């Protein structure tokens, strides 16, 4: 380090002569240009911009100059150093780009190699379809109600206007139960529908309005074949409120099929008989596949609806006032509607499943394609 010296004459300082500064700059630029790789550039950088480089040393001499000379020399050196740094940055950018291009090429892999290291899982389509239906109705304000699968006969039959001698009761293929020692049980069965949950919902509510859906597994002593299973899934709906009508039932069904299958879908009711509803109806929906256009059109047959144009969905009706009475609800003030259908059948026609056994056997090849939601 040199101390300022008032008698110092800039002309005398060789290092600060303009020609000398220019020479140092040009040397540096040439050295950078000549650097073949980043290591060489680093060496050139140390040599030409480092603390001991001629330019740095020259810069240090400026402080000793008288004010006027200081300004001139400062500008000169500053411009030279600016040019050098710029050249260095440019050359580095070029060399880095070259290096990156080379290294990243060397690191390239075949990204089409199969990567199935983490096994995939899936949820059962009956579960997800049932949830999908649940979402449609919870969005409307319904609650999802559930109940036991081994159910009291009073809740499964009697309260639903199916007394012990009702002809409909014997057609339900009920599974009856015995205790662990083989003795028969009193008034307890495997539920044949989820209607017991409807009854429980009405008994639990102090007063309507009641809007619930009841999904769940139900049991009928059928043999398993391509279209039947002794254990299947059902979803039932119950609405009890002041002034509910069959038109409300129809509108609710229409809304459901639009939600499930898209705009333009609708339902149709046909008279039928169920003890727990009066009036009762069978509900059909327009075939979502052909939208009814296969009817009378042999050139365009529809497998989904057998060219009938309609698909049978399930049963429905206005809650029989006798059922309301058994649940302590005043039928003169309140009315209700209900419907129910099997989810297996819905899954079969919505997803073109041909054999019920595929749904129940638990083969992962069946379930995996359905993923997480349906």
């Amino acid at each position, binding site marked *: 380090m040199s101390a300022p010296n008032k008698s110092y004459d800039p002309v005398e300082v060789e290092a600060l002569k303009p020609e000398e500064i220019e020479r140092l700059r040009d040397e540096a630029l040439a050295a950078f240009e000549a650097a073949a790789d980043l290591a060489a550039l680093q060496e050139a950088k140390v040599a030409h911009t480092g603390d001991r480089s001629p330019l740095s040393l020259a810069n240090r001499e400026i402080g000793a100059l008288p004010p006027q000379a200081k300004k001139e020399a400062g500008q000169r050196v500053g411009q030279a150093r600016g040019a050098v740094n710029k050249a260095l940055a440019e050359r580095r950018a070029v060399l880095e780009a070259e290096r990156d291009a080379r290294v990243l090429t060397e690191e390239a892999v075949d990204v089409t190699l*199969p*990567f*199935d*290291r*983490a*096994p995939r*899982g899936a949820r059962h389509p009956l579960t997800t379809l049932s949830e999908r239906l649940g979402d449609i109705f*919870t969005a409307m*304000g319904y609650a*999802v109600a559930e109940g*036991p699968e*081994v159910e*009291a*006969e*009073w809740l499964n039959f*009697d309260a639903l206007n199916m*007394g012990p*001698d009702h*002809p409909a009761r*014997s057609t339900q293929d009920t599974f009856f*139960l015995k*205790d662990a020692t083989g003795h*028969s*049980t*009193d008034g307890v069965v*495997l539920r044949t529908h989820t209607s017991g949950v409807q009854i429980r919902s009405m*008994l639990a509510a102090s007063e309507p309005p009641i*809007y619930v859906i009841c999904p769940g597994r139900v049991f009928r002593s059928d043999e*398993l074949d391509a279209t039947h299973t*002794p254990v299947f899934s059902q979803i039932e709906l119950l609405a009890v409120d002041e002034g509910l*009508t*069959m038109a*409300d039932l*129809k*509108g609710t069904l*229409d*809304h459901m099929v639009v939600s499930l299958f898209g705009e333009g879908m609708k339902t149709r009711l*046909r*008279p*039928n*008989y169920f*003890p727990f509803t*009066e*009036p009762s*109806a*069978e509900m059909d929906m327009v075939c979502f596949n052909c939208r009814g256009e296969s009817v009378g059109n042999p050139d365009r047959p529809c497998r989904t609806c057998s060219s009938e144009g309609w698909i049978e969905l399930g049963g429905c009706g206005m809650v029989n006032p*006798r059922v309301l*009475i*058994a*649940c302590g*609800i005043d039928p003169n003030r309140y*009315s209700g509607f209900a419907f129910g259908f099997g989810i297996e059948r819905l899954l079969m026609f919505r997803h073109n499943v041909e054999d019920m056994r595929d749904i*129940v*056997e*638990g*083969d*992962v*090849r069946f*379930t995996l394609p359905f993923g*997480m939601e349906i």
Partner: protein
Amino acid sequence: MRVPLSWLREYVDLPAGESGRDLADKLVRAGLEVETVEQLGGDLKGPLVVGKVLAIEELTGFKKPIRYCQVDVGDANGTGEPQNIVCGARNFAVGDKVVVVLPGAVLPGPFPISARQTYGHTSEGMICSARELGMGDEHDGIIVLPAEFTPGTDAIELLELVDEVLDIAVTADRGYCLSVRGVAREAAIAYDLPLSDPALLDVPPANSYGPLVKVEDPAGCDRFVARGVVGIEPTALSPLWLQRRIQKAGMRPISLAVDITNYVMLELGQPLHAYDRSRIDGAITVRRARAGEKLRTLDGVERTLDVEDLLICDNSGPIGLAGVMGGAGTEIATAVEDPETGRVSGTTEVVVEAAHFDPVAIARSVRRHKLPSEAAKRFERGVDPEAGKAAAQRAVDLLVLVAGGTAEAGVTDIAAPHPVHSITIAADHPDRVAGQEYGRETVVRRLQEVGCTVVGGDVLVVTPPSWRPDLTDPNDLAEEVIRLEGYAELPSTLPTPPAGKGLTEAQRLRRRTGLALAGAGYVEVLNYPFIGETVLDAFGLDADDPRRETVKLANPISDEEPSLRTTLLPGLLAALRRNVGRGATDVALFEQGLAFRVDGTDPGTLFKAPRLPVDRRPTDEEIAQLDAALPRQPRRVATVLAGNREPDGWWGKGRAATWADAVESARTVAAAAGVELTVRQDQHAPWHPGRCAALYVGETLVGHAGELHPRTVKALHLPERTCAMELDVELLTADGSGHVEGPRISGFPVATQDVALVVDAAVPAAEVESALRAGAGPLLESLRLFDVYTGEQIGADKKSLAYALRFRAPDRTLTADEASGAREAAIAEAVARTGASLRG
């Protein structure tokens, strides 16, 4: 109910071109479930004529006997010459009248008929069997017609071979549609045409000299009509038209008297019974059975009667199970010809019974004796109590007409008083049920159409007709109006439920659990809940294990699996085995569902559900009694896995599924539930005694996980090292998931310290970890076991556990002394609790 269109047209004058399908469409809209419309003789084409067999030549030398016949077919063949026909049947003789199909005709199938060479002769057509004509398949051999028909007569018309039959599934409320009369009534309404009611007959009034009848149980039998017919020709056969109608309706012609009772039942819906009067001893008596009484029914089965069974009796005892089936002892006798004298014996005197029985009594007898019958089916669903007199008259008329009998003048008609049942409804009640305005006029008209008597203005008093016992409530009447006005016309409106709260926490958890397990590579299966004893044996369960205490099915699908599951594992393991059997190697499955447990229930109330009334809400105590009768039905979640958890691949070897994956699946479930799971070593069937983890939330045992016992694996033919987890979701979440306080994130640097401790091999890692945590105090941010070492360096029966501890303070940078101080405290606690020593 099968209804031939030709029969129905007798009572409703349907438009000429109206087809069975047209009618079916209208009836479906009115609420009758028409399952099929059968086209009889649809592709049938003549000539099909009556022939008289003139000569039969037996041909020999063939595999079976063959006949070469000459048959007179009148002018039907254009020449009047006998027709030469080869025939393989043998149930006819020279002189018999048969049905002949001539070349050029087409039989149902369709089978075109032409003259053809066979058995060395030219056969100019065929002699037909019932099956070939589409008349049913119960008869073998060809049809032999009654002698009165002329050769050449068109047999298509004679045998009524072209017809349409509507097959209707009659619902429990529409008993009246189990008759042509009832269906015709619906057709008449649908077409707005008058009905000629076949029950409108001239019936002589009751008198005191009819067959002797005593009704001792008027509650069980509120109507009993009896008539006598004498002088019946025992050999008389049912006329063809009657046989054909019965056949088309799906019943089999049996004998004249039985055919007539069946015919009248099909026509009017009133079941009848015909007794051989010579076999009745004294008065016909209706009463309940006495203990120990027996009856041999028409089907030949001797039945021990129940005191609730309603009986028809005479002095000898029971002669019929009322409304269900008659007894063999008073059956109409088949005509038998004495080969020596040539005299024909058989029933010549008949008592016809047309009664009305209590539906409940009939239904119970049917169930008790497992004896469904056409008669019982009608009584169970409700028979028109006013139809009995007409039905008896119709049967008498037919016996006179076709069997040469003479009607006796006596008419027995015992009737218990029958209260008239009226229903009062507001005239706009159907409107309010439907959500559509019909108006009083329409409501009254529709109710009158179904046969009701209606009086009143804004309030209507409606008396249903005798054939509609199902019409009891205001909504029954509303349904009649709405169905006849058309369900298709109903508007579509949406109710406005109050705002909902969405799914419950338990329901959301179930979805999260499913998503988490599926995300972790498990595939959901939904197994039947049926299990057998063998799988519990394979599990190695102790005799008193509560999982052996199963709820059993009285009527299982398979005797191998008569019980309800007490654990989800049997079904899951069967599904695993099925997948492996079908070629899968790496399988991971899960299920969420209910198990059925008797343990923890009160044996005093279990399976003893009271039969509560339905005319009021049960009390809360009564509802509690129903619930106390049910077994526990805990919701459980389980996983099973075998093979590789990670597959072999180009990246190298895969990783076999182990006990740890099973435990991990439990952690996945616990994480979804937001609860902390702790693990303890356990021994619990069916798990491997050294590789079984008990899963705890706090001090509550919620389930188990690990590798299955090798014996269980072998017994169930599972892949080696199959692993499983099962836990009780309700126990898991019993304390609710922890409420999460937002963590304060410290910005100060972390201080990391490693610790390696040597402990006895038997010391569980979980204990060492909890000791370290307890000792380290609040500065400990996290702790992780990164190595487990066993080997010579540390001696036998020892293991070394290496942990990385991270310390951090919320408010300052920790000094080196603070960090090592916390580490020392952690080590000291581990030494004190587990006997650990610091590894040098």
